[in-house]
Structures are given as C-alpha cells and as structure tokens.
C-alpha cells in the first residue's frame, strides 16, 4: 500500500485563475489534497489560451501551460452569476477546508462567496484571496497584469544595461513567487485550525510579494539614500563577473571570480596568458577598476570554446561558472534529469506533457503527480453528483439554467 500523502482528506474549493492562485493549490494537490478548480466557459482561464499563444492548439483544452499549472485537480464548469451556480458554490464551500479566489477585490462578494459570507456557511474555513494590490487601500481596485506587478515592485529598473533602457524580467515575475508564500501560510493555517478549531483569512498582494524580494535595495535607499541602478552583470565584489560569449550561435557562459584563489584557478584554466600577470589585474580591486578591459580579454578566450566546455573547465578548477541555459539546454540538462525535475503525464489532446515538480524533494512523503490539468468541466458529473450530492434532475436543471456551463457558452460560440 502506498503511504498516505500529507494532505489527504484536505479539501480545496479553488475559485482562482491564471498563475498565482492555481500554482498554490497545485502544490497542495500534489501532496494529496482534493482540489476542485471552478471555471466557466464564459471566461476561460487565460492560461488555457497560453498554449495557443505559443503557437500550437487553439483548443480550450490544448494548453500545456494550463496542464502544468493544474496538476492533480478536478475541474468543474460553473457560472457563478446564476442562482443555481451560486447554490452549487455554497455547497462546495461547505464541503471545503480551504477556499481560494483571485478575482479583482470586491468581485467575489457579488456572488455571495466573500469571506464573511462563506464563514456563515463554514465557520472554520481557511480562505485566501490573492490579487495585485490587496483587498483594501487606495489602489486595491487597480487592474493590470503580472508584468505590471513586476514593474511596480521594481524588477524593471534593476535589470538591463546602465547605458540603455532597462529590459526587466519578462513575464509575470511575482506570479512565480506568490504561490509558495501562499502555501506556507495555508499550511500554517491548517495546523492552527487543527489545534484551535479556528479558521483564517489571508489577503495577499502580489505587489507586496515582489517587494519582499527587492531587499536590500530598499534598505540601502532608506539608510544610505542610494537608489540602486541596473548594472548589467556587474557585481560589487567580483571581477570578472558576467556572461561571456562562447563558440556557437548566441551561446553564453556565466563566470564569477570573487577571490584571489578563484582568480588564480581561473588564470590556470585559460592557460596563464601574459596579460593575467599585468598590474591592472593584480588584485580584486585592480580587477574591478579595469573591468572593461578584463571582460574583453576574458571573452577573447571564451569565444574559442563551447559554453558547456567553458563551464566544465572552470568547474574542474572550482571556479563558479554555468551555461546560460536556454530551453533546449534545460531540456537536456543532466542534473535536472538526474533529479527527475519533470514528469511526463498523459494528456487527452497533446499526447504526453511534461510537468515540473517542486524544487524540494521530501524523503518520506514525496509529491505525486497523478493527472494533468483537467479539461474544462471534465469532472462535472463526479463532483456535482458524488461530492456535492446533487440528483440527476437537479443537475439537469442546472444545465438548463446555464449554471453548469458548456462549450456553447464559450465566447464566440454563438
């Protein structure tokens, strides 16, 4: 018999969408929780479109992005603006231990599913809201995308070259940070409820999540008045420090030389050319001072070798170095493969799809990836009948009212 998973028996009503919410509930699902993702054909999750954005399938169920973000979940399609939809949702939250939502602040109250309403149905509910700027405050109704949260939190100004416009970290940066904080809080809340019988409310602002990763730049401003500027790949404590062009098309290797020991090893690797003994590079401070010249000389060596060779040669002498890995490199990375970082699961439309596992491995209660993200409404019958106890007649009424949505409700379907 397989060992019981950590969150077996924990039930989650998941009204979130996009990335930050679904990635949090996925973490619980991979450790045994029963997660029911509530969607609607009227407003499909943006991640269901992300597969087609990447150029493959226009189908609502054909996105590997959605598949990866929603592992192990059950999926139902429900219109929360319909009375019967709300009735089903009330039954769902009564069933649940955890409710999650990521609507714009105030929106879920229109469906009678805000924390205060849910608490009347389920007094010890653990309820989390994740939004861009939080549930209250003058900017709480602000609407934007994840990359604007990244920009708000300062992750555009600090990435790029000092002589050019910043480039920023592309994508919805804070969406990759927020879910794990949510999971930490939810587990603490589950344990608190186990001990005290009390539920809890969590209000997450993805903007604030980002700012927790922006230190120490805010402290530096606060106590020293300094505004950190982007500095390419420069580091105050190391030179050479950067990504250096290698043999091949757009191929790069990162190298970081901080100490004199690192420098000596580095010089040996590149064959101790005469310039390495130049006074300009005789100490860490001198190397910092003459960094532009140094970078050029380093690159004269790296361009003659492939990036994996540069990494291997440096690492053999203990110099920190690593290939700037692109999708192909990551796919073939022997270390990621050694750790089974991704697991292949069957997908009804895409054949098989890779799903990334968490970055931690638990020795006794490992995560278990059992199924890819659900098709829209895939588990309607099971959830409405077996879990929520609706009769066939009631389900038929819900379909007639449009409370259970179908493909006919999709935008552009009529």
């Amino acid at each position, binding site marked *: 018999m397989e060992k019981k998973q950590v969150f077996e028996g924990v039930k989650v009503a998941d009204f979130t969408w996009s990335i930050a919410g679904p990635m949090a509930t996925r973490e619980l699902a991979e450790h045994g929780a029963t997660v029911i993702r509530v969607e609607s054909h009227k407003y499909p999750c943006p991640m269901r479109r992300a597969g087609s954005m990447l150029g493959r399938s226009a189908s609502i169920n054909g996105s590997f992005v959605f598949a990866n973000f929603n592992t192990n979940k059950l999926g139902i399609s429900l219109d929360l603006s319909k009375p019967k939809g709300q009735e089903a949702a009330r039954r769902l939250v009564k069933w649940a231990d955890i409710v999650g939502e990521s609507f714009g602040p105030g929106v879920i109250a229109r469906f009678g599913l805000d924390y205060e309403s849910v608490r009347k149905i389920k007094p010890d509910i653990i309820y989390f809201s994740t939004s861009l700027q939080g549930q209250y405050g003058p900017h709480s109704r602000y609407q934007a995308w994840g990359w604007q949260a990244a*920009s708000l939190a300062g992750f555009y100004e600090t990435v790029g070259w000092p002589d050019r416009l910043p480039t*920023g970290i592309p994508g919805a940066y804070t969406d990759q940070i927020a879910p794990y904080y949510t999971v930490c809080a939810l*587990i603490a809340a589950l344990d608190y409820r186990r001990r005290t019988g009390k539920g809890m409310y969590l209000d997450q602002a993805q903007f604030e999540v980002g*700012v927790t990763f922006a230190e120490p730049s805010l*402290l530096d401003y606060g106590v020293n008045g300094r505004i950190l500027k982007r500095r390419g790949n420069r580091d105050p404590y190391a030179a050479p420090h950067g*990504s250096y062009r290698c043999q091949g098309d757009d191929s790069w290797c990162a190298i970081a030389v901080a100490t004199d020991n690192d420098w000596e090893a580095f010089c040996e690797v590149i064959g101790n050319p005469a310039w390495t003994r130049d006074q300009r590079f005789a100490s860490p401070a001198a190397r910092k001072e003459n960094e532009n010249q140094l970078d050029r000389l380093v690159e004269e060596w790296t361009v003659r070798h492939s990036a994996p060779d540069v990494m291997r040669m440096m690492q053999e002498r203990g110099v*920190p170095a690593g290939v700037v890995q692109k999708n192909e490199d990551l796919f073939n990375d022997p270390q990621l493969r050694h*750790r089974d*970082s991704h697991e292949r699961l069957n997908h009804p439309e895409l054949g098989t799809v890779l799903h990334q596992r*968490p970055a931690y491995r638990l020795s006794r209660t490992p995560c278990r990836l059992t199924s890819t993200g659900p098709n829209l409404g895939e588990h309607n019958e099971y959830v409405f009948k077996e879990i929520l106890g609706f009769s066939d007649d009631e389900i038929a009424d819900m379909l007639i009212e449009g409370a259970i949505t179908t493909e006919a409700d999709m935008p552009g379907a009529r």
Partner: protein
Amino acid sequence: MKQRVDTEPLLGSHRVLDLTDEKGWFCGKILGDLGADVIKVEKPGGDPARTTGPFYHDVPHPERSLPWMYCNSSKRGITLDIEATAGRDVLRSLVRSADFLIESFSPGYMEGIGMGYEAVGAVNPGIVFTSVTPFGQSGPYKDYEVSDIVLWAMGGVMATCGDKDRAPVRCSVPQAYYFAGLQAATGSMVAHYHRQLTGEGQYVDVSIQESVLLNVPNSVMTWDTFQRNTIRSEGMRVRMLYPCKDGRVVCSIGGAGVGWTQSTIALTNWMAEEGMAEELADIDWHNFNPGAATPEQVQRAEEILGAFFLTRTKQELYEAAVQRGFSLAPSSTPKDLREDVQLAARDFYIEVEHPELGDTVTYAGAPLQMSHHHWGIHRRAPLIGEHNEEVYQTELGLLPEEVAALRRDGVI
C-alpha cells in the same frame, strides 16, 4: 483587514536551528516571520557572509550588512564551532529540542562531521531536516561552485533577460537565494504538517537551480513541444517599457481579451481628451485583432504612446491608470516604493529598533496578511553570539563555567 483577531505566533511553539550561509538564510527568515523560534548558528566570529554589502551608513562592519540584517531578522543568534568535538556535542543537545534543522553546506559535509540526517534523525526522529544546495544532494553537478549569476544562468531565467544584441543579464538585486529560501520553507512546511499529524520527521532536499527554474515554468515544455528557444527581448510583440517625464512606465495596448480592450479604451480615451490620441482614437478596439496588425501599425502606435507618456510624470500616469482603469505601472525605484501610498495604507513596511545603531530601520514587510497572525519581523537580526548565554545557560542548562570553557576553547 487591518484589525487582527489575535496575534498568536503560528509556529510559536517550534524551534528552528539555522546553520545556513547566504544560500539558505531566507528559509529561516520565513519560518521566523511566521513566529518560529529560529536560532541562527554561526561560526565563532560570525557568519562570513556578514561582510556582504551594502552596509548601514556605508560603513563595512559585520553588524551592519544590510543583506544580512534583512535575511536574518526574526532570528536569535549563537556562535558554535560545529567541527569541534565539544561543539558537536552542544549541537546534538540543541537538536533534541529542535523541530527544524536547515543547512546549506556542500553535499556530504554534515555526514562528514557526524551530523547528517541519519545521525540527527536518530537523536530526534521528528525533526524536519532541510538542505539547501545549488543542485541538490546528488547528480553530476552536485559539487559545482556557484554564485547568484551562475544559478540565474543555469536555472534558465538569464537567457530570457536583456537585449538581443548584448549578453544576457541578471537582476542587479541578487534573486537566486530568495527563490531557494522560499522553496525550502515550502518543503519544510509540508514536512512540518506531516510531522504534526504523525510525529514523523523527514529529509528535505532543495535544489537552488530548480527553484530558479520555477520562474520560467514553460521552458522545458516549450522545447519538448516545439523545439523552440525563448530569445531575450522577443517574448512580447508589443513594446512594454516607455520613458516618461521623470522615469519610465510599463504599459501596452491592444492585446486580445476583455481586460485588454477595456484598458486600451480607457487609455486612448484619455489621450483623446488631451488631444494626443492621433489615429489611435479611430480604432474600433472591440473588434481589434492584434494578430493582424502590421509592424508599421505597431510601430506607429508605440510612437503615439511614447509621445504622450513623455508629457506626464510616472506618478501622474499611475494615478490616472488607477482612476480611469487602464493597465499601466511605474517602473519603480526604491524611492517610489518607499513613498507608495498603497503600501503605506496597508502598513506594509516594518520599523525595527536597532539599539546598537541608535536608530530605527524600515524593512520590507510581509508577503501576505493573516487574520490570526502577524506575519512579519518579530526581532531584528542578532548580533554575533548575542544569545549565547540565553541559549546555552538558561535554555540548555549548561553551567556558567562550562560555557566559559567552551568560550576559552574557541568553540563559542
């Protein structure tokens, strides 16, 4: 939710032994901010990474390192030479009363000093033992030397950052160890819950490379499906970042979907009121198909937006975005963040007394607000050996002369 029901520290009855260097600091901070009693165990003389700047008032000093102060807040601190026999005995006693042990030594180091998971688990079967290493405990790269930039490169984010005609870049605020600490805290919490239910501890093996990789969650799948790399600066067809009067803003228009349409109309209406929408005023955004726009049309739209943004400050543009409902954000500097009205209204920042500096220092606050707990800094980062007496004498019950002997022998 400003008013909290009560403020019981959620992990208040749990003790964490934090043996990490900068790679794993952030894990202990998260557990500490959640209320755990985190004891940072440093080498006699202090954690070598206390020499990392920037420093308070730019004076390099081990008690003034700002990265250290942030990532070790909500912890107490002791010094201990865990390689000395006497030090190991003390650590073994500490392990008995601990619920978590976090370390970031090279794979095999803890086993080498007789304090690997097997040994520690034998002393305390309920312990959650978390290792944070660059590539995990085993595999071809497990002994590779790293730094932030190397992990940013190996984890796949760097390839997506920067301009196409220059080298890929990292973030000038090092990020890799934040992701590692957060993954370590998450894994530790999952293991903690299992321990709470069953009494059984376990080993948690965290890879920093995989933690960074979570930022490019579609990378491996994109290769698997399309055999396509993601080239930096090519992710978005439409430009995002524009200079304005006093800085920069991030905005784009004309994407597909209801949110985009509403946002685009709100912005172009405002520009039309100001007489600066040009031909953007004539576009039927409800039926606009971004996929059909020609490069010339896109470029023209960017010129019109760019010209308008230059007439306003980032604050003016941001306030208008909030009021009128279009999606635009300032490209914030630390100054913008410290002056942000939303963060102020939510009491995001935390003022922490530093008596040794004669000052109060303002720190970034919590990643979320909880109704029954104050997630946040509960004490400033410890000075070197600050809690030696408290931990060794009061809590561990060593006699003053035993502590004096340890100190004489350089163990603490």
